[in-house]
């Protein structure tokens, strides 16, 4: 299963970015091969509008079925709901920690933007 995380840096030791659309990077991890991490640069982080939409598009293209972030905006939220991506929230921890929490089911769902 492919999991996307919004990140401040390029490795799993980086702090999770609390915002989805404005994050510097998206980390893509395959739970079947947890050693491999793909890094996506967020080219649309400073767009005036619709950064979340482009972020959602980028992780969908990478095949993500799960997103772990702090929060996402209304446009991205709508799109990801439509795409049936599961959304989880985590803050103040590294991407690695967030993944561990996700694995043992302790991350809350994101129920609204």
């Amino acid at each position: 299963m492919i999991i996307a995380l919004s990140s401040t840096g390029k490795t799993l030791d980086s702090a999770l970015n609390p915002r989805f659309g404005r994050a510097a990077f998206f980390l893509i991890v395959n739970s079947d091969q947890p050693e491999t991490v793909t890094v996506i640069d967020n080219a649309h982080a400073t767009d005036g509008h619709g950064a979340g939409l482009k972020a959602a598009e980028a992780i969908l293209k990478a095949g993500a079925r799960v997103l772990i972030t702090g929060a996402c905006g209304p446009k991205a939220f709508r799109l990801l709901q439509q795409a049936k991506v599961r959304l989880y929230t985590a803050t103040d921890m590294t991407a690695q920690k967030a993944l561990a929490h996700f694995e043992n089911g302790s991350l809350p769902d994101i129920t609204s933007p």
Partner: protein
Amino acid sequence: MKIAIASGKGGTGKTTVAINLALAAQQEVCLVDCDVDAPNAHLFLACKTPRNSRVVTLPMPVVDESLCDGCSACSDFCAFNAIVSFGTVPVIAPDMCHGCGGCARICPRGAIREVARRIGVIDTYDDAPITLIQGRLDIGVALAPPLIRAVKQEITTGLTLIDAPPGTSCPVVATLRDTDFVVLVTEPTPFGLNDLVLAVETVRALGLRFGVVINRAQETDSYVRPYLSHEKIPLLAEIPDDRRIAQAYAVGMPLIKALPEYAPLFSRLLTQLCEVA
């Protein structure tokens, strides 16, 4: 001849100046309300039913999913992040779309066609000898410039006074483009000056000739008058800080009707504008 009345700071008196110039004209004059988010010129004229109403639309893309192959050329092209490729079902965010038509042109499968999406209405009212052309954006629509451009297309020849929106962003630029002269209305306060400076930068960048009217003018003014003097910007008129003006405004009464002693001020201003524009 098109004279625009703009400001910088909101609430300085653009509509007051526009309305009273129109009334002082005592000839056929076209008053155009380009503050399409919140038009208010009609409140000061005898406007009941519009003589004419025109719905304005913007082209918006619709994707035929049976033709789409998910190549995402449309999404890559869109400068406004309004169309997002999602498998073979590109998702369109109508409120982001600027109606540029680029996605429809670029789609290699011809899967995108455009449909008309309503953004607002243009109403024309008669209060002879004034004709009021008013643009009104639909509630929830964020894009003013296309409606403003459509409103300006209704302008015919003759003396035209354009009531601009406040500020200096896209709706104001769309309003001021191709006008002959801009009257910047300000007030002698720190905010008034700050925003006047921004407005002056804007009209200069647009290459438009302009002058300033100070509303709520005070005897001592350490803000606007020194700035105008330093920048050699013409001071066209000063409207005093007369409480009765606010009282008339509050009941929707045009200034020169409530207080005829102000009529010569606006007649003189109009004559001056007709000379320099």
